């Protein structure tokens, strides 16, 4: 019997999202499963944003902390370093210093940091809160205003705070990350709630919640795959925003990226192990549907870029 290519026809399409004001980045737009360009259109590469923080990364493991030695004391130098030296296509500024258990910086402080970073870079900026529901709703409102006109991504809006954050992102013309906890129905519901406020669904980015390789990765992987299938095969428009994998922050807190080779000789070299862990986590989430990645280690990001080169 002759072989006939068993092509799939998809009825839906992922929304195409453009971010940035000066230099821009575009992702999404495909009408096929990840990298299935053999049976449809996948016009854009996934985008990798480099993570920087408003406070020095004291809690990051050595392997990734030392990359940013000398620049990470100040978010502006750090972001410029990522853009100019590491060639980052986008920057993700995480305002961990606003967390009440950390430096508890005020929304005004955060707005100033955002303005300073924006003034120093020309690549797109993703602005993330500290993941504290109440504080984020104040901080993200103030940074949305500070970044007006810059076409940033604001995040993350969650069930507990999406109203204020979505309203601010809408008023200041930004894109918005909607994050729920590893459940396709919760994810769909949050997207619906946000669009019911009048927020344009084509300006959303879905974060189904990331997890690191070995620490729940299979859940993120399958939720992403199911979201993508719903978007493409059922033409479910609530599931058509591109997806985010917030990789670095989950990877660089687990044991495999920190335990020394002396303690665990059977695990091999610590530096390579950590970098590979981030690259492999990111690589598998690309296979399940992520279009936007936030990463920390430049070598992991570069390996993933090479992987994408080969896949496109």
């Amino acid at each position, binding site marked *: 019997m*002759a072989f006939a290519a*068993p092509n799939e026809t998809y009825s839906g399409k992922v929304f195409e999202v453009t971010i940035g004001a000066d230099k821009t980045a575009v992702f999404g737009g495909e009408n096929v499963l990840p990298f299935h360009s053999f049976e449809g259109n996948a016009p854009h590469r996934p985008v990798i944003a480099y993570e920087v923080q408003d406070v020095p990364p004291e809690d990051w493991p050595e392997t990734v902390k030392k990359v940013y030695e000398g620049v990470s004391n100040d978010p502006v130098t750090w972001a410029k370093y990522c853009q100019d030296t590491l060639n980052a296509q986008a920057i993700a500024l995480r305002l961990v210093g606003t967390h009440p258990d950390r430096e508890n910086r005020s929304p005004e402080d955060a707005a100033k940091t955002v303005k300073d970073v924006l003034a120093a870079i020309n690549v797109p900026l993703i602005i993330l809160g500290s993941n504290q529901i109440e504080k984020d709703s104040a901080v993200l409102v103030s940074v949305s205003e500070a970044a007006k006109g810059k076409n940033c991504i604001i995040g993350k809006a969650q069930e507990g705070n999406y109203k204020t954050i979505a309203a601010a992102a809408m008023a200041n013309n930004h894109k918005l990350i909607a994050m729920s906890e590893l459940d396709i129905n919760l994810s769909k519901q949050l997207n619906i709630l946000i669009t019911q406020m009048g927020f344009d669904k084509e300006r959303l980015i879905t974060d189904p919640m990331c997890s690191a390789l070995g620490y729940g990765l299979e859940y993120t992987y399958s939720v992403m795959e199911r979201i993508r299938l719903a978007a493409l095969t059922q033409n479910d428009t609530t599931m058509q925003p591109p997806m985010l994998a917030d990789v670095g922050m989950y990877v660089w807190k687990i044991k495999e990226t920190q335990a020394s080779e002396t303690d665990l000789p059977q*695990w091999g070299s610590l530096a390579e192990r950590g970098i590979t862990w981030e690259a492999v986590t990111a690589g598998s989430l690309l296979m399940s549907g992520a279009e936007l990645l936030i990463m920390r280690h430049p070598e992991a990001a570069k390996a993933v870029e090479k*992987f994408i080169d*080969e896949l496109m």
Partner: protein
Amino acid sequence: MALTGVEIFKLLPKTNCKKCGHPTCLAFAMKLAQRQASLDACPDVSEEAKKVLGEASAPPIRSIALGSGDKAVKMGEENVLFRHEKRFVNPCAFAVEVKDSMSDDEINNTVDGVLNSEIDRVGQKLRIDAILVSNASNDAGRFEGVVKAIASKAPAVPLIIATGNPAAAEAAVKAVADKKPLLYGADESNADAMANIAKTHKIPLGVTAKGLDALTALTEKIKGLGVEDMVIDPGARTAKEIIEANTYIRRAAIKKNFKALGYPVITLAQRDDKMVEALIAVLGVTKYSSIVVLSSIEKWKNLALFTLRQNIYTDPQVPMQVEQKVYKIGEATPESPLTITTNFSLTYFIVSGEIENSKVPTRLAVMDCEGLSVLTAWAAGKFTASKIAQFIQESGIENEISHKELIIPGYVAILSGAIEDKLPGWKVTVGPREANALPAFLKSR
């Protein structure tokens, strides 16, 4: 395509003689359709029906063993395209390439690497599964010598004999035929000779062609030559080619029951850049390869790939769990501390591993929370104060220890008061949040 119960029924004798242990032929047919019975149970079924049913009930991807004995690896038998539909069945094998042009020292080092590659993770022993020996030297004598040397150094490790030269293949296969190696390298130019070797030695044959049309023609030809067990290589080398070929192969087999491509797939992932090689392996693990061939096996790379394979191949419905009971870690005495956690395998193995690291003999009470992690179980109402209290009381642990102190995970500190209320006389101590702080915590007590 799988037959329905009624379609199967039409092929049965329809005498309702009950010899199969079922009241009627139809009842038996229904069981067959659900793969809960075997056709052998009916003594009167015709040869014709056997043939039709045999073919229809064969899994869409043929089951093939790589190697023999304890460390043999099962491949194939997959039923779905996406892991959330149903558990992926046979985890893909990792093989490292040894070129016979390498020096004996280099070869020995690599084989040692394979022998020492085993890592315990979440209760499973994971390792580099196989060695692919390639005839890069083009010297048949050297090839045979290297294959023999590897087989004697690593007798249990499955071998893949990689050459397109039938003479070299014959000699090498003959030397290790009892180990049931995979002979990889049948192509359009040598199919007859290679099929013959595979048939003579009853070993599976790796078949390679550029593109799926050519591959289809080739597997059909080789099947016609009497070789049933094949592993296929569609000639895909870049990531873009691999995802396309592997997706088409899996879909053709599963959705169209296309037998000519219903075989396990071998993927060559070797790259100079080790990080990129790991990512090509990611593609193989997630997208349908049954064997992924690597150029090197650094421990850090192995650990990441083993972990990914374990993640992708776990059952999506049932988390990996351990038995509910009070485990003793080290030489625990009645005075030793008592800790508690949930029965999610990952949680248990992380926590018990850290307690071992502490060298402080300790009891770890593992409570059945349907395989959920501490925080998930807490959020789902399965790791609550009253359930913990009930578990501690029913476990009978009070009779085994000389104190009444329970150490709980830091993430559920909020439960401490309520547990004390429900367990009169007990003191609840809040442990650290992350298990890696447990050694310091236990030692400082």
